[in-house]
């Protein structure tokens, strides 16, 4: 989910860029050199996964997955998502020179918030973990939609209706992201719990 070029105002673009830069700086600081390969390859996996289109009635939507990105990468979600957006911009010409900052913020800030809110519960009991994972996937998209709406309204007060449409149109996506995040976390818990326990704060070694 991202805002196209040419819509947002100068102040919004610049504040978005400044906040994204700050988040990315924190993420890079927490990312030690031994972890760059791992983070990069996981980002590549997220990038590929986000190209998956899932059906919703007669249409389809592509996955966002910033909830799981947050759980797995913590603050490193900022640099990872920044790079994913750069890749998108070059592979699919979605743009992203002036909007790179705002769009990074839209995706990454909720990921970090959800990391703090839900990561502690993910390693817990199965039922708790599933509930937390659903909430994580759902709320992460909601937060993203809210930041997106805020960016639009701060750019131009007459974007109120469009902001409302943006939020409402993301409701089914929130449900889908919640369900997929829940199943995916369940999968990882069963198959490779170590992947979840080493999240966020990277330790040395593998």
């Amino acid at each position, binding site marked *: 989910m991202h805002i*196209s070029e040419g819509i947002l105002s100068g102040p919004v673009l610049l504040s978005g860029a400044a906040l994204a830069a700050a988040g990315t700086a924190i993420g890079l600081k927490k990312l030690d050199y031994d972890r760059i390969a791992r983070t990069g390859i996981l980002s590549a996996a997220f990038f590929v996964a986000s190209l998956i289109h899932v059906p919703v009635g007669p249409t389809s939507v592509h996955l966002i997955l910033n909830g799981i990105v947050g759980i797995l990468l913590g603050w490193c979600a900022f640099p990872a998502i920044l790079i*994913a957006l750069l890749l998108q911009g070059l592979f*699919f010409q979605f743009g992203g020179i002036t909007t790179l900052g705002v769009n990074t913020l839209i995706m990454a800030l909720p990921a970090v918030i959800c990391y703090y809110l839900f990561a502690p519960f993910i390693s817990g009991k199965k039922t708790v973990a599933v509930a937390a994972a659903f909430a994580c996937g759902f709320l992460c998209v909601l937060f993203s939609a809210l930041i997106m709406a805020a960016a639009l309204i701060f750019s131009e007060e007459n974007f109120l209706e469009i902001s409302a449409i943006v939020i409402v149109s993301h409701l089914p996506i929130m449900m889908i992201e919640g369900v997929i995040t829940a199943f995916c976390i369940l*999968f990882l818990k069963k198959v490779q719990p170590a992947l979840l326990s080493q999240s966020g704060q990277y330790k040395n070694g593998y």
Partner: protein
Amino acid sequence: MIEEPFATGNSAVHNIDPRFRVIAAVVYSFAVALCYGFVPLITAFAVSAVSLLMCRVSLKKVLKQLALVNGFILLFWIVLPLTYPGGATYPLGPVTIHQAGIAFAAKITLKSNAILMALIAFIATMTLATLGHTLGRLKVPEKLVFLLMITYRYVFVIAQEYQKIIKSIKIRGFRPKTTLHTYKTFAYVVGMLLIRASERADRVYNAMRCRGFKGTYYSLTDFQADAGSWIFLIIVFGATTAVVALEIFLRF
């Protein structure tokens, strides 16, 4: 499934020093993003279109990409004429169309496409590997460049793994529908991709250790700016100045 359709070519633009192209794209895009007048935006649109034509890339591909990207803009064409007050009004059944709304939607469309065409012309005409080297030369933090390089390198490997899993679910009769079974299946596909990525990360890290990795990522690419690159930069800066001047003096 993933490709860089415009990255290879032998046009004048492809041969310009990538550092100059990145700087030009950033300066020009931000300048255009701050414009609100029809005259500067039409000028910018024309400048971007000419730049794009000079790249001699497939126009069919360009138009296809632009059509996809303009989907979000379409929303503004539907909503703004109804909600953006100002100018003449035209009744249309139960609703009213505002002229100012139409004008604003048109400006957004011009601006958005001008910036996108500049992106395609200046940056999509290099591979991400070149962009990574360029950003390194432009003092972007080394860790971020390293991360970009690794992500770029492995996106293709993981895309192949993804295609294999998709083949596997296809041959077992899977057809995506709006059902829990479908969402669960895709969640498993994502989970499997992440686990495979994680295992691969361990192997890649081992390979790096075997080659004496000590936390430094070396870039060996050097760029040299020839006269053409300087002329390019001057032209783009000139066009940028012109657009900004039009915005300041001719805004309406």
